[in-house]
């Protein structure tokens, strides 16, 4: 029974990684930028959710939507100011800028509101425990999993079936050729950031309701973990992010369950390196040999 309980724990944790990873993978897939600020957008989303619940007295879903919208705008803003001018620069220049943006968001947040933590109210969502053969499943865990899967399906649909999705894929492969099709590359990239960031916003609010504690540096570790998840699944691949996130969550839970909680992150990274060595493009990635 304990093992099933641990799987349930792992899946809940993993769903949050997955949700952040979806946005990560999406942005990476289209603009090939490791957007290190993604974890901080997640943090901002969490605070937007917090303030809209405590000050605007919104309930969960309106707060979630508000946070998603705010993050979408925020993501577009970041892209326009910091990344767009570097579109033709080297990848590494963009990466350093992303690190800079990440530091700026964190420290800007501390500057404006201080570094102290904040706790989400306890009663935003009803906490029902479902007891199944000794396994406690919180209704919140189910909600998180549900939201993650739903968003993943929507995202997959958007990217593969809609016009804007096709435009995104075209831009990701060859922005100049995409222009020649009449695609507005700037808007497409903005849309990518908007969608990716709104997912981070959603993850932020969900994180807040599940873990309560939020603070300006809260995005660093989940951001890193989510990135690892995205790479595990094959970066740029939407279902890969989902699977990578869940896998990471489950691995972490099982390691802790075996009494190795201090090695939890270590094992996660070891798995990452092993997967990369044996499947260099991640689990779902196609092994593209460079064509000479």
């Amino acid at each position, binding site marked *: 029974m*304990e093992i099933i309980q641990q799987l349930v724990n792992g899946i*809940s944790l993993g769903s949050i990684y997955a949700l952040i990873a979806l946005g990560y993978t999406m942005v990476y897939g289209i603009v090939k930028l490791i957007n290190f600020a993604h974890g901080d957008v997640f943090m901002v989303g969490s605070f937007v959710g917090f303030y809209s619940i405590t000050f605007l007295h919104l309930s969960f879903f309106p707060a979630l939507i508000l946070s998603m919208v705010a993050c979408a705008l925020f993501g577009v803003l970041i892209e326009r100011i910091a990344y767009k001018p570097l579109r033709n620069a080297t990848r590494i220049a963009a990466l350093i800028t992303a690190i800079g943006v990440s530091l700026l968001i964190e420290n800007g947040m501390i500057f404006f509101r201080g570094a*102290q933590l904040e*706790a989400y109210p*306890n009663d935003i969502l009803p906490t029902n*425990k479902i007891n199944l053969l000794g396994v406690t499943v919180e209704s919140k865990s189910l909600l998180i999993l549900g939201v993650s899967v739903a968003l993943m399906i929507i995202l997959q649909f958007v990217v593969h079936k809609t016009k804007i999705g096709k435009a995104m894929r075209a831009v990701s492969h060859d922005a100049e050729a995409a222009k020649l099709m009449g695609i507005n590359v700037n808007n497409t990239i903005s849309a990518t950031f908007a969608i990716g960031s709104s997912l981070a916003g959603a993850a932020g609010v969900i994180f807040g309701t599940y873990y309560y504690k939020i603070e300006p540096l809260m995005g660093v570790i989940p951001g890193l973990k989510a990135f690892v998840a995205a790479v595990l699944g094959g970066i740029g691949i939407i279902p890969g992010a989902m699977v990578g996130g869940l896998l990471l969550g489950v691995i972490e839970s099982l390691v*802790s*369950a075996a009494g190795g909680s*201090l090695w939890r992150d270590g094992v996660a990274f070891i798995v990452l390196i092993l997967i990369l060595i044996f499947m260099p493009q991640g689990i779902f990635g196609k092994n593209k040999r460079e064509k000479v």
Partner: protein
Amino acid sequence: ALLSGCGSSDSAGSNASDELLIGANLELTGGVASYGQSIYEGANLAFKEINEKGINGKKLKFVKYDNKSTAEEAMNGALKLINQDKVLAIIGSATSTNTLAQVELANKNKVPIITATGTSPEVTVTKGKLNEYVFRTCFIDPFQGTVAANFSTKNLSAKTAAIYIDNSSDYSKGLAASFKESFEANGGSVVTEEAYLQKDTDFRATLTRIKSKQPDFIYIPGYYEEVGLIVKQARELGIDVPLMGADGWDSPKLLEIAGADALTKTFITNHYSSGDPDVKIQSFVEAFQKEYKGKKPDAFAALGYDTAYFLAEAIKNAGEEVTSEKIQQALAETKNLQLVSGTFTIDENHNPIKSATILRYEKGEQVFETKVNP
């Protein structure tokens, strides 16, 4: 720019002017900011009161440094306060680990450091050797851990216990060790020892593991930020045995994170209780609330306040020509000084001998349970 930056504070010891520079190297931001802020508020209030009369005609001036709750920054802060600002003494960091990072600097530069709340014995006596220039205002962990163990066996009739340790903190590890020793001496058995690290947010896996061992009682000697989450998640997983911790729990943030419900059946050992009817305590509580818009002083505010008075007393006794060395001597010789958190007599290990208080959470409020003397 490099050289000009240092020219300003060349007046060593600053006894030329009538200001006495005192450094504060505190956790003002970061993981355990609540402690540092409380200590600062307490000490600041004391400085204000002291400066109304002055010490030997001089006033105290506070130079504060935020160590961001990290040992690395704490070391940097001490380096800067000692060499650049040339302070006479430093009110050291809140946690044991962060204070430990400054120990060598204090000894080497002969500048006394007093930690208000660093409870690990190692802080003043490292590897069996006394740190001449390090002092503290609080009791030490072997005492605190024993108090908790005795309380759990006698008052809570616990036979089996689990311990959940913050492995990043010397304090937590020390407390766990002394708790275990006393608990087992009392005839109890520790069924499992688990560990986490600061900044962790998901404790469910380990808690599930602890739950499966079915202890009567869980000892969680950590800091409020993680403890809040642990308590909350433990209750959500259906763990309803009593939980107990130590002074690290004492922060309003604990209640915010865990919520009042989850905190029922939890206990802590602490330095004092603002609910204690003692007059000295009540007049401090009043003064504090007046200064800080009705805020209730937690134990760290009280200890910060006491630290400032402890230091001021030593400066007074050090005479006209104050130097760091003289302050050190005076600190070491302090006897029967009556302060808010108790009476100070510094022993040969630079520790004051003080009593501990046990508090219980009820509807989110700390309720005075008992007081234990050493």
